[in-house]
Protein backbone atom coordinates (compact mmCIF):
# COMPACT_ATOMS: atom_id res chain seq x y z
CA UNK A 1 0.00 0.00 0.00
CA UNK A 2 2.62 2.44 1.02
CA UNK A 3 4.84 1.68 -1.85
CA UNK A 4 2.20 2.26 -4.42
CA UNK A 5 1.56 5.69 -2.97
CA UNK A 6 5.18 6.62 -3.16
CA UNK A 7 5.46 5.95 -6.83
CA UNK A 8 2.13 7.39 -7.83
CA UNK A 9 1.17 10.41 -5.74
CA UNK A 10 3.61 13.11 -6.78
CA UNK A 11 3.53 16.05 -4.44
CA UNK A 12 -0.01 15.39 -3.32
CA UNK A 13 0.83 14.79 0.27
CA UNK A 14 2.31 17.78 2.04
CA UNK A 15 4.03 15.76 4.70
CA UNK A 16 6.02 14.12 2.04
CA UNK A 17 7.48 17.24 0.59
CA UNK A 18 10.79 16.94 2.38
CA UNK A 19 11.34 13.44 1.24
CA UNK A 20 10.47 14.48 -2.27
CA UNK A 21 12.99 17.26 -2.24
CA UNK A 22 15.70 14.99 -1.04
CA UNK A 23 15.25 12.80 -4.06
CA UNK A 24 16.27 15.72 -6.21
CA UNK A 25 19.49 16.40 -4.36
CA UNK A 26 21.57 14.12 -6.48
CA UNK A 27 19.89 14.80 -9.75
CA UNK A 28 22.22 15.24 -12.66
CA UNK A 29 22.36 18.84 -13.75
CA UNK A 30 20.51 19.65 -16.93
CA UNK A 31 22.30 21.44 -19.70
CA UNK A 32 21.44 22.95 -23.01
CA UNK A 33 22.18 20.45 -25.76
CA UNK A 34 22.54 23.18 -28.34
CA UNK A 35 25.08 25.11 -26.31
CA UNK A 36 26.97 21.90 -25.75
CA UNK A 37 27.11 21.16 -29.47
CA UNK A 38 27.74 24.82 -30.26
CA UNK A 39 24.82 25.03 -32.63
CA UNK A 40 24.05 28.65 -33.38
CA UNK A 41 21.33 28.26 -35.90
CA UNK A 42 18.37 25.93 -35.75
CA UNK A 43 16.96 25.10 -39.13
CA UNK A 44 13.26 24.57 -39.64
CA UNK A 45 14.09 22.16 -42.42
CA UNK A 46 15.91 19.79 -40.10
CA UNK A 47 12.92 17.58 -39.41
CA UNK A 48 14.78 14.86 -37.57
CA UNK A 49 16.17 17.35 -35.11
CA UNK A 50 12.84 19.06 -34.52
CA UNK A 51 11.06 15.77 -34.06
CA UNK A 52 13.36 14.97 -31.19
CA UNK A 53 11.95 18.03 -29.46
CA UNK A 54 8.31 17.39 -30.22
CA UNK A 55 7.62 14.04 -28.61
CA UNK A 56 4.40 12.04 -28.68
CA UNK A 57 1.68 14.65 -28.83
CA UNK A 58 3.85 16.84 -31.06
CA UNK A 59 4.03 19.54 -28.42
CA UNK A 60 7.19 21.52 -27.94
CA UNK A 61 9.37 19.95 -25.30
CA UNK A 62 9.34 22.36 -22.35
CA UNK A 63 12.52 23.96 -21.18
CA UNK A 64 12.10 22.88 -17.62
CA UNK A 65 12.41 19.28 -18.75
CA UNK A 66 14.65 19.52 -21.78
CA UNK A 67 17.05 21.91 -20.08
CA UNK A 68 17.46 24.03 -23.19
CA UNK A 69 18.67 27.55 -22.53
CA UNK A 70 16.31 30.41 -23.27
CA UNK A 71 18.16 31.58 -26.36
CA UNK A 72 18.07 28.19 -27.97
CA UNK A 73 14.58 27.39 -26.82
CA UNK A 74 13.38 30.53 -28.56
CA UNK A 75 15.12 29.56 -31.78
CA UNK A 76 13.85 26.05 -31.49
CA UNK A 77 10.32 27.33 -31.01
CA UNK A 78 10.60 29.50 -34.11
CA UNK A 79 11.92 26.60 -36.15
CA UNK A 80 9.22 24.22 -34.96
CA UNK A 81 6.49 26.69 -35.77
CA UNK A 82 7.84 27.23 -39.24
CA UNK A 83 8.11 23.53 -39.87
CA UNK A 84 4.51 23.12 -38.74
CA UNK A 85 3.29 25.64 -41.26
CA UNK A 86 4.98 23.68 -44.01
CA UNK A 87 3.44 20.43 -42.81
CA UNK A 88 6.87 18.98 -42.13
CA UNK A 89 5.90 18.16 -38.58
CA UNK A 90 2.38 17.92 -37.17
CA UNK A 91 0.62 20.47 -34.99
CA UNK A 92 -0.94 17.66 -33.02
CA UNK A 93 -0.94 13.94 -33.18
CA UNK A 94 -3.92 11.79 -32.53
Amino acid at each position, binding site marked *: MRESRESGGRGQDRGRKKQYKKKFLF*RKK*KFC*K*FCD*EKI*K*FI*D*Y*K*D*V*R*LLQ*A*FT*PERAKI*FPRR*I*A*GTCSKHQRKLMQAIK*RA*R*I*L*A*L*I*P*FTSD
Partner: protein
Amino acid sequence: MLQYETVFIADPTYTDEEVDELIKGYEQVVTAAGGKSVKIEKWGKRRLAYSIRHHEEGIYVLMTLECPATLVKELDRRFRMNDRILRHMAVRVESELQLGPSPMMRPRPERDEQLLEPPMMP
Protein backbone atom coordinates in the same frame (compact mmCIF):
# COMPACT_ATOMS: atom_id res chain seq x y z
CA MET B 1 19.46 43.16 -51.13
CA LEU B 2 18.51 40.51 -48.70
CA GLN B 3 18.48 36.80 -48.86
CA TYR B 4 15.20 35.03 -48.60
CA GLU B 5 14.26 31.46 -48.60
CA THR B 6 10.93 30.43 -49.91
CA VAL B 7 9.40 26.99 -49.79
CA PHE B 8 6.25 26.09 -51.59
CA ILE B 9 4.23 22.93 -51.67
CA ALA B 10 2.65 22.11 -55.01
CA ASP B 11 -0.26 19.84 -55.67
CA PRO B 12 0.95 16.21 -55.93
CA THR B 13 -0.76 15.84 -59.29
CA TYR B 14 1.92 17.97 -60.91
CA THR B 15 4.28 16.07 -63.18
CA ASP B 16 8.02 16.58 -63.04
CA GLU B 17 8.04 18.69 -66.18
CA GLU B 18 5.24 20.85 -64.90
CA VAL B 19 7.14 21.46 -61.70
CA ASP B 20 10.23 22.45 -63.66
CA GLU B 21 8.14 24.82 -65.69
CA LEU B 22 6.63 26.27 -62.57
CA ILE B 23 10.05 26.87 -61.08
CA LYS B 24 11.27 28.41 -64.31
CA GLY B 25 8.31 30.75 -64.28
CA TYR B 26 9.08 31.93 -60.78
CA GLU B 27 12.75 32.31 -61.58
CA GLN B 28 11.81 34.60 -64.43
CA VAL B 29 9.78 36.71 -62.07
CA VAL B 30 12.76 36.94 -59.77
CA THR B 31 15.23 37.97 -62.44
CA ALA B 32 12.76 40.42 -63.93
CA ALA B 33 12.53 42.18 -60.61
CA GLY B 34 16.30 42.47 -60.38
CA GLY B 35 16.86 39.62 -57.98
CA LYS B 36 18.61 36.36 -58.52
CA SER B 37 17.94 32.86 -57.42
CA VAL B 38 20.90 31.47 -55.55
CA LYS B 39 19.79 27.94 -55.02
CA ILE B 40 16.90 25.74 -56.00
CA GLU B 41 16.20 22.49 -54.30
CA LYS B 42 13.53 20.04 -55.22
CA TRP B 43 12.65 17.84 -52.32
CA GLY B 44 10.23 15.87 -54.41
CA LYS B 45 7.04 14.31 -53.21
CA ARG B 46 6.76 14.16 -49.47
CA ARG B 47 4.04 13.03 -47.15
CA LEU B 48 2.41 15.97 -45.42
CA ALA B 49 2.25 15.89 -41.66
CA TYR B 50 -1.42 16.76 -41.93
CA SER B 51 -3.70 16.94 -44.91
CA ILE B 52 -3.95 20.25 -46.72
CA ARG B 53 -7.01 20.65 -48.91
CA HIS B 54 -7.55 16.91 -48.78
CA HIS B 55 -4.09 16.16 -50.08
CA GLU B 56 -1.90 13.78 -48.14
CA GLU B 57 1.19 14.44 -50.22
CA GLY B 58 2.84 17.46 -51.72
CA ILE B 59 5.72 18.40 -53.94
CA TYR B 60 8.17 20.56 -52.05
CA VAL B 61 10.42 23.11 -53.67
CA LEU B 62 12.88 25.36 -51.91
CA MET B 63 14.19 28.53 -53.52
CA THR B 64 16.91 30.67 -52.02
CA LEU B 65 16.74 34.16 -53.44
CA GLU B 66 18.66 37.37 -53.31
CA CYS B 67 16.11 39.99 -54.04
CA PRO B 68 14.51 43.24 -52.96
CA ALA B 69 11.74 42.98 -50.39
CA THR B 70 9.07 43.98 -52.86
CA LEU B 71 9.65 40.80 -54.80
CA VAL B 72 8.72 38.65 -51.84
CA LYS B 73 5.36 40.31 -51.88
CA GLU B 74 5.00 39.75 -55.58
CA LEU B 75 5.90 36.08 -55.26
CA ASP B 76 3.44 35.73 -52.43
CA ARG B 77 0.74 37.15 -54.67
CA ARG B 78 1.60 34.73 -57.41
CA PHE B 79 1.62 31.75 -55.10
CA ARG B 80 -1.80 32.74 -53.90
CA MET B 81 -3.16 33.03 -57.38
CA ASN B 82 -2.19 29.49 -58.26
CA ASP B 83 -4.80 27.13 -56.86
CA ARG B 84 -2.47 24.22 -57.17
CA ILE B 85 0.04 25.59 -54.69
CA LEU B 86 -1.01 24.13 -51.39
CA ARG B 87 1.19 26.22 -49.21
CA HIS B 88 4.09 28.62 -49.36
CA MET B 89 6.32 30.41 -46.91
CA ALA B 90 9.11 32.92 -47.31
CA VAL B 91 11.60 33.67 -44.56
CA ARG B 92 14.69 35.82 -44.24
CA VAL B 93 17.86 33.81 -44.20
CA GLU B 94 19.86 34.64 -41.15
CA SER B 95 23.12 32.98 -42.06
CA GLU B 96 25.18 32.13 -45.10
CA LEU B 97 25.28 28.58 -43.87
CA GLN B 98 22.12 28.10 -45.82
CA LEU B 99 23.90 27.96 -49.13
CA GLY B 100 24.88 24.34 -48.79
CA PRO B 101 22.41 21.55 -49.26
CA SER B 102 19.67 21.65 -46.68
CA PRO B 103 19.03 18.87 -44.16
CA MET B 104 16.31 17.63 -46.48
CA MET B 105 18.87 16.55 -49.02
CA ARG B 106 20.77 14.55 -46.48
CA PRO B 107 20.55 10.80 -47.05
CA ARG B 108 18.23 9.23 -44.59
CA PRO B 109 20.15 6.89 -42.33
CA GLU B 110 22.99 9.36 -41.96
CA ARG B 111 22.58 11.85 -39.15
CA ASP B 112 25.29 10.08 -37.29
CA GLU B 113 25.35 10.08 -33.55
CA GLN B 114 21.97 11.00 -32.27
CA LEU B 115 23.30 14.36 -31.61
CA LEU B 116 20.27 15.91 -30.11
CA GLU B 117 18.17 13.45 -28.25
CA PRO B 118 16.27 15.30 -25.58
CA PRO B 119 16.82 14.06 -22.06
CA MET B 120 14.43 11.49 -20.72
CA MET B 121 11.46 12.55 -18.73
CA PRO B 122 12.15 12.26 -15.01
